[in-house]
Structures are given as structure tokens and as C-alpha cells.
């Protein structure tokens, strides 16, 4: 195996009597290899050890979706997982899904529809939308409501988010169909 790009982790002091375990995973396309405390939550590992600050810890119990990431191709909460549970997994955070610069089509639609206000919950929504697009979910599918029920937004009242998500799903379908609307 090639040498990992990152060797990270805040080293634990020997005198701290806490179990630690080796961890390897791929994050945003880069391999990570380190040693972490057994109890370290995945959200804290990504935010604090890897400095990936897009995901937010807003509830700590898996209720709000602000910590959503993609793990092995599926959207999941990172606050209800230990870092060690992601051993060998492929993880993408918003930073790894962004376009090289500026806004991609989904993000532009969110901006146009004013589907964010304070922006704290927004990275979570985007990860879910990318996952829905990957699964080719139709904008009128009942699954849309299920995915959206996985996120809390306190600012927008969701109306603009619904519009943005449906538009984004519709645009993705048009693109993959290769035809005009």
C-alpha cells in the first residue's frame, strides 16, 4: 500500500489510561492512517483531527443531520459513529464533494432559491442531496420526504429547501437523460 497522505491524530499521552486503536480510512480521496482513542466520535475525528469543519455537531444524538457525511457511498450521521467504526471505509465530507472552486449546480440552485439562511445546517443538506442524486431519486418520489426528514433547519421553514431540492433532482435527471427539459 502506498504511504498514506496524512498521518494524523492528536497523540494521546502515555499516562492517560485510555484505550487507543489504530485506524485507517480514506477521506475525500486521501488515505488516513493514525491512532485514536477508542471513544472518539467520527464527527470529532473529522472536524478536529482532520480539520474538516464543514460538518457540524449540532445535537450529538443523530436527530438533526448537521453532521451528515457520505460513508461507503451512503449518507450517514457522523455523530452516531465512532471513528473506529469507519475503519477501512471511504468517507466524503462536503469538502470532498465541492467543485474545485465556486458553486456547483446544486449549490447554485440553493443560492438562487435562498434555501439557506444562517448556513449552519447547510453542509448536511447538501451531502444528502448529492446522495439522492447518486441514487437517481425522482423529485416527486415519496423518498424525497424521507431524506428531508433527516435534517432540521431552524431558519428557513423548509419551503425554499423543498423547491431547491426538487429543482436539483430534476436538473440531475435531465442531465443524466441527456435531453432537454
Amino acid at each position, binding site marked *: 500500500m502506498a504511504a498514506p497522505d496524512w498521518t494524523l491524530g492528536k497523540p494521546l499521552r502515555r499516562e492517560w489510561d485510555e484505550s487507543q486503536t489504530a485506524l485507517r480510512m480514506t477521506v475525500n480521496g486521501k488515505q488516513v492512517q493514525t491512532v485514536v482513542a*477508542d*471513544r472518539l466520535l467520527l464527527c470529532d475525528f473529522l472536524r478536529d483531527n482532520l480539520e474538516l469543519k464543514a460538518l457540524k455537531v449540532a445535537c*450529538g444524538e*443523530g436527530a438533526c443531520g448537521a453532521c451528515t457525511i457520505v460513508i461507503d457511498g*451512503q449518507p450517514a450521521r457522523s455523530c*452516531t459513529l465512532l471513528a*473506529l*467504526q469507519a*475503519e477501512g471505509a471511504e468517507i466524503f465530507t462536503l469538502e470532498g464533494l465541492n467543485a474545485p472552486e465556486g458553486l456547483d449546480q446544486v449549490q447554485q440552485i440553493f443560492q438562487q432559491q435562498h434555501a439557506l439562511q444562517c448556513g449552519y445546517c447547510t453542509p448536511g443538506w447538501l451531502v444528502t442531496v448529492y446522495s439522492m442524486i447518486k441514487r437517481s431519486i425522482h423529485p416527486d418520489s415519496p423518498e424525497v420526504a*424521507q431524506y428531508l426528514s433527516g435534517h432540521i433547519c431552524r431558519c428557513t421553514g423548509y419551503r425554499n429547501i423543498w423547491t431547491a431540492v426538487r429543482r436539483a433532482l430534476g436538473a440531475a435527471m435531465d442531465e443524466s437523460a441527456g435531453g432537454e427539459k
Partner: protein
Amino acid sequence: MVIPGPGFADILVGAKHALSIRVLHPNVLKDGFECASLVHLSSELQMKPSIFKYVRAETADHAVELLAGADSSARILAGGQSLIPALSARSIKASLLLDIMRCPGLDEVSHAPGEITIGAACRQSRIEFSPVIQGSIPLLCETLSWVAMPQVRSRGTVVGCLAQANPGGEMPVVALALDAEFNILLRGDVRQRMPAGDVYAAEAGARLPAQSLIVSASFRTLTAGEGWGFSEVQLRQGHFALVCCAATLQLDEDGLIRSARIALGGITANPYRAQLAEKALIGESADNDSHFREAARLASEERPWPARSDLHATGSFRSKTAVAAVARALMDARNKCSWKTGGNHGRS
């Protein structure tokens, strides 16, 4: 007073600065509603887990060996979607977490005549969209679509949900409706098979042998022409079930009900099968909705334990709306009775 003991699933308990235990105290809210809080009674406001040791079990036998060598607070870790938040809130403390997700064979789905067995490492989303399961136990797929949300089902496991026995959880309900049996491994390669009815025989919690591992759960497949239905009442989409019902129906050629299964959850912490209601339906015409409404009323009344109250709803509310949930599930099942084995009926 409920104290966690060896071999029984812990009920989340409160702790007063980690030194004493206070459990299930009744509280009086405004308007005289009574409330007994089961979850999150901890006075601590922490949200990072306390120290534990994490071990990846190499095989199911290895997991059971490790359990045997550990203290009673050791826990099996599958998806973790219930366990990790409880550890974060420090409602539960564990000395050891045994991750079983890499044990060979635990992620298999296997068939036997009339039965499908789902391994302990099978994730909910995989089962929800499995063509095999959709073709043989569509009730399970439909029920899964009500469990939390897709972003939780991507990690949670079917068997983990069954073992956790969260009050009002949907998986134990459908397990009862489908005569599920838990395949349990004990030390020394001892295997047991426990019907779901025995596992959920107590008012709350999953009653399992000490230091055991559920390696899989077996569900009976639906027969040709057997209809199924699932109905849930929630505060809002994405929240818990206040009440839920899983039901199946078989009709004879004359449209009379040959057999019925009604499993009711939420009204009490553990689900129960409404056997009196089931019997009352036999021989009745499936075209007459009043039979289903009567059966629903019976099903709510025959609860073996008192209807529970919590922050979200009273027992009185649950017992009333359970009637609606059961009636809806039965009528849904009746409408699906022309379904044939192997077809993909999809989801309503």
C-alpha cells in the same frame, strides 16, 4: 425499580452525579397528564462518551468468548445508531464494545423453505431495497421505510434494532407479526433459537441469555395471496412511533378471513401480538370494514401492560390511536391480498 442486571438488556437509567441511581419516577405535567420518563434521565449534561475499550470481533464465536470474559456492562456494537448516542449522553456506560460488523457470515441473507434469515451485520437500507426481501417479505421493507430516516438506516442494522428494543420501535413489531426467531450463539458454540414472542415477553427490554450474541433473525416469508400492512402514528415524519401496527391477512376463495396476524407497538414499551383480535377476525368477511374496526378496538384493549405515557403522548392517547393504526394496517393488508409470491408489489 429496574436495575440493569446480567443477561438482560439495560433500560436506560438516570444517574445523579454518577454516584446514585434514580429511575422511572412518575412526574405530573400540566393538565394532570402523568409521565414516566425512560430515556435521558441523567442529570449530567455531557455529550462525549466515557472511556471504554473497543474491540473488533473476528468471528461470532470470538465475540461470544470476549463477552464471557467481560463484565456485565460489555455490549455488542453493530450499527450503533441507538448505542452511540446513549453512550454520548452517558445514559449508558460500557466497559467494552464488541464490534461484530466484520465477523464472517453475519452479513448474509439466506433462505430456507418459508423463511428468510438476516444476519446481524445486515444494514437496514440494504434489506429495505433488497429485491429478495421485497419479493418475499415486503412487510419488512415497508416497515423499514418508517424506521428513523434513510441517513440512519444506512448504518443501523435490522438485528441491532431488534436487540435494542427501543420503546415503540418498529422492528420488534414486525418481528412479532412475522413469527421471527432469533438465532443466538452462546459460548462453546451453543446455539439457541428464540421466538420473538419470548424475547419481548416482558413489559420492556429484550430478554436474551446472558453473554449471548444474536447472529441472525429468521422471518417467515409471506404466502401467496397473503396481504400485509403497516401503519404508524408519529408526531412528525422522522420522529419516533407513538403507536404502530404490522398486520398480515390471508383470505380464502370466498373472501373470508382465514388467518390474521396483528402486532401492536408503541402503546407499550414492548410490542405484543393481539391474539384475541386475530381470532375475532377469522371467518369474517374481509369486505366489511367494521370487522377490522372491531378487531382494532380489541387489539388495543387486550394490551398485556398499561399503556405508557411519556413526554410525547399519554397512555390514553396511545390506546385510542392504536385503534386507528390497527384498522388502517388491516385494511391495507386486505387491499393487498391478491399479491402473489415472488412479485415485487412495491410499497404503498
